[in-house]
């Protein structure tokens, strides 16, 4: 299954996610078809930090949504944690999301009526098994992202950068295999964006796999690899920095 775009074999690292010939076609009401993805194959290894770039409409978000198990591909396969999840039903996909995936959104998407610590804990309430010490863990993560003194604030009382920190803490509370971020710095000024990227980099150094969509070259420069999409196809993959030795 490995091809030129797959460095997994080369590095010998564990592959956490692999997509094979992924296609996504949207059928519009008037019979027209939009080919958002036209056969994309990629491997993601443990500890990878991938930036996905491309023009608007090139299929970045579509790809990320498929990686996030929020949607079914029209065709192709998606292996996550060793199994093909591309045909699972809604319930199974929910469970996959809850166990293996962390989301970070451009517009933070915190739940407004919940406090910081409650927001961080939301993914735990959807775990099959109850996590003991979830609250303590949430407090630890809040400290980790630098919000130890804002535990009981609500999102409206936080700045954009702070909200995104909460979202990052939320995205890792369930120990996901991959973290998916769709333009995490898109709503932030460059200084705050850089802080957020520092945080993501730190997470990646700690071993987390991150797949991030971005428009900004200096944000993409922080990743190990940059995947460029054009019209639903991979146009180019470039390696920024060598992967740190395992």
């Amino acid at each position, binding site marked *: 299954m490995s091809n030129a775009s797959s460095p997994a074999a080369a590095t010998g690292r564990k592959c956490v996610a692999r997509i094979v010939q992924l296609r996504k076609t949207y059928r519009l009401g008037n019979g027209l078809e939009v080919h958002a993805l036209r056969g994309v194959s990629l491997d993601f290894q443990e500890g990878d930090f991938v930036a996905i770039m491309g023009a608007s409409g090139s299929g970045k978000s579509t790809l990320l*949504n498929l990686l*996030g198990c*929020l*949607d079914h591909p029209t065709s192709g396969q998606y292996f996550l944690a060793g199994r093909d999840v591309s045909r699972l039903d*809604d*319930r199974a996909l*929910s*469970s996959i*999301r*809850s*166990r293996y995936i962390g*989301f970070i*959104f451009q517009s933070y*998407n*915190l*739940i*407004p*009526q919940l406090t910081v610590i409650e927001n961080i804990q*939301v*993914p735990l*309430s*959807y*775990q099959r098994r*109850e996590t003991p010490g979830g609250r303590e863990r949430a407090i630890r993560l809040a400290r980790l992202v630098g919000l130890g003194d804002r535990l009981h604030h609500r999102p409206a009382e936080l700045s954009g950068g702070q909200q995104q920190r909460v979202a990052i803490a*939320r995205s890792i509370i*369930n120990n996901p295999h991959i973290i998916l971020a769709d333009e995490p710095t898109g709503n932030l000024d460059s200084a705050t964006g850089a802080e957020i990227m520092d945080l993501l980099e730190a997470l990646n150094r700690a071993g987390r796999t991150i797949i991030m969509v971005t428009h900004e070259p200096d944000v993409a420069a922080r990743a190990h690899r940059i995947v460029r999409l054009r019209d639903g196809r991979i146009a180019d993959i470039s390696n920024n920095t060598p992967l740190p030795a395992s």
Partner: protein
Amino acid sequence: MFRRLVQKLRLGVSSLMLHKLRSALAVLGILIGVTAVIWLVALGEGVSYQAQQQIKDLGATNIIIRSVKPPQESSRAGGSFFIEYGLLREDYERILANVPTIRRAVPMRELVREVRRMDRVLDAKVVGCTADYFALNHLSLVRGRFLADLDDEQLENVAVLGHKTAAVLFPYEDPIGQTVQIGADFYVVVGQTAERTASAAIGGSLEAREYDTDVYIPLSTLRWRIGDMVVTSRSGSREGEIVQLSQITATVQDLDEVDPTADVIRTLLEKYHKVADYAVVVPKELLRQAEMLRMLFNVLLILIAGISLLVGGIGIMNIMLATVTERTREIGVRRALGATRQDIILQFLSETVVLTGMGGLLGVALGFLCKPAVIAIRWGMQRILPDVMATLPANIRNLEPRITLWSIVVAFAISMVVGVVFGLYPARRAAYMDPIEALRHE
């Protein structure tokens, strides 16, 4: 599991607090519905309880046979101005002899007479009766003794005074051992009964019975001293009535013997009475009246409760649909973070149930105001529309609502069920949103 449920409910409460006024308005229908259920059940129970009390009073196993003046002026005396009608002593003997289900029959004759004590006078109801009469009517004594069988056999001139009779004739003294005068005869007072509330009327056939202005003397003494005839002067002419017995109260053993026995008595009396100069009344009849009234309340209950709960439910559904739309983004986020459709359904359903549950609790609280409300309404009516009040039947005028536990439980449960039923559609709508679309929602 339990912790998660508590967590869900807490979440529900906190979301509802976001829109206090909106939530309050949404539950108004539920609140009214729950209150209506509790109130109407309480009123129905009040009527039914009242009837049961009255039946206990009159004796559910009793059959009351009364003399009734016939409408047409026919007379067995043959053309004189005396009208003879009503129950005969022979009827009493016949009933006792021919109706085996009767355990006891108590005859009674009553007439209004002037009763004197020195210069004090009272128009009292003179009741000729036997010893059984006191037990039958649950009369109790404050002084002295009741009439005894021996008094009747020996035609003693003894009397037991009703509460008010004693108070009027003997305001300062103990009446026992004193004499009162009825007509030309003197009677020795041997007892005085305690105050007793009047018994209920049954439709048109049995009037309410006051006991407090009674004077009880032995039945045989009454026959001997006063006789069967009552003469009344009316606009110059004199008119007389000859009545042997005013009432016979027959008691049967079992409740289900009441109706057949009453039928037997009717057939028996029909044979000897050419005209309908008597009535057979069954206190159980009160129950039927009460049931009618309760049915009326129940119809009202179903109507009002049904309408308000339906309207309330639709109100709730409307609010929840708005909430779901408003929180589309949140739903998308929760789905992305691993919530299944079922999780989302449970979340919104518990929110709805919390909402209707709060409405239900408020409704229960208002339900407890039923009694004060009835008292207030009655007081107000008495003030403003005393004439209207007077025309109302006694069982409505004196209605005491009785709040029952089951009505509270049922009403509250209904509010919960309304929450689930009307919450299900919005919750499903939330759960079946496309998570990607939901995340993009502004």
